[in-house]
């Protein structure tokens, strides 16, 4: 169980809805992953079009929480307007705030991000900022009113997994009481387990599941890995040791 903005979420996995081979596979993957939240977006509708309606019905049928994003926005204005439109359409004040600053790495523009976060927090949005592992930026986001942070662990869709464990550790240590969700860059269940073992509160992913050969199987795998990592974090893991110690007691050993 996991609390976010007063909501109690049954799992610590947030799943994206993009790039699946088919709507049916998307729906099965969400169920298999046991995700408690799915992310969605907005796009231009064609005159007379019904695409949006079909997708929207599919999503509502999943029965999960919905987290709209501002994907692809490169300016504060774009992000803010998109957030407001999303609130009207999806009927939620939750917003995954993306202000992209670099087309190669799709990394956040931390300057625009903080500005947009302030505007949206003042407008009573529940802002989930997609940010870097920069502690100072994180402080600014909290000052701006954010109650949760979503640091990347690698570039979006890179599947590299946590490329800077040192920074993630520092972030967890520096913000013991802020919900931290690793967003973007995860490629394998072991990556998800690793960040959960570091004490992160949840993970958000999309490409690693949607683009897998078998998205449903991969979704299930990630679901289990997130649970495994969280349980390990709560169960007191062994510290690595340099010298080997026997697991089988040496006392009472026979001598031949």
């Amino acid at each position: 169980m996991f609390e976010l903005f007063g909501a109690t979420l049954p799992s610590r996995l947030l799943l994206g809805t993009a790039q699946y081979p088919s709507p049916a596979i998307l729906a099965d993957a969400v169920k298999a992953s046991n995700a408690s939240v799915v992310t969605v977006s907005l796009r231009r509708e064609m005159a007379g079009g019904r695409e949006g309606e079909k997708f929207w019905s599919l999503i509502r049928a999943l029965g999960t929480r919905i987290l709209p994003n501002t994907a692809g926005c490169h300016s504060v204005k774009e992000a803010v307007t998109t957030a407001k439109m999303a609130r009207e359409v999806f009927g939620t004040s939750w917003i995954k705030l993306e202000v992209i600053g670099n087309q190669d790495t799709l990394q956040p523009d931390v300057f625009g991000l903080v500005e947009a976060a302030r505007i949206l927090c003042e407008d009573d949005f529940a802002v989930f900022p997609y940010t870097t592992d920069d502690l100072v930026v994180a402080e600014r986001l909290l000052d701006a009113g954010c109650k949760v942070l979503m640091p990347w662990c690698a570039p979006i869709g890179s599947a590299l997994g946590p490329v800077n464990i040192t920074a993630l550790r520092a972030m967890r240590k520096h913000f013991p009481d802020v919900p931290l969700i690793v967003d973007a860059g995860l490629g394998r269940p072991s990556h998800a387990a690793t960040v959960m073992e570091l004490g992160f509160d949840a993970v958000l992913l999309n490409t690693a599941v949607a683009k897998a050969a078998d998205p449903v199987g991969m979704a299930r795998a990630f679901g289990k890995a997130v649970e495994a990592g969280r349980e390990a974090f709560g169960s007191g893991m062994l510290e690595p040791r340099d010298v080997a110690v026997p697991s089988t007691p040496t006392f009472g050993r026979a001598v031949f």
Partner: protein
Amino acid sequence: MNLIVNGEALEVDASTLAALLAALDYEGDWLATAVNSDLVHKANRAEFQLSDGDRIEILSPMQGG
């Protein structure tokens, strides 16, 4: 009137946003509208007067990461 709707230049005979949607056969409560980069609430579309050259965005739900 000359408008830019979802990036395309159109000439439409519609004085309000609601009229524009009707003229273009848009319907459904899952649509969101913005004029010149600002949200226009569903409730305000009927009285929202369009002007020549307005940029209108009509969006609906899609997959997202």
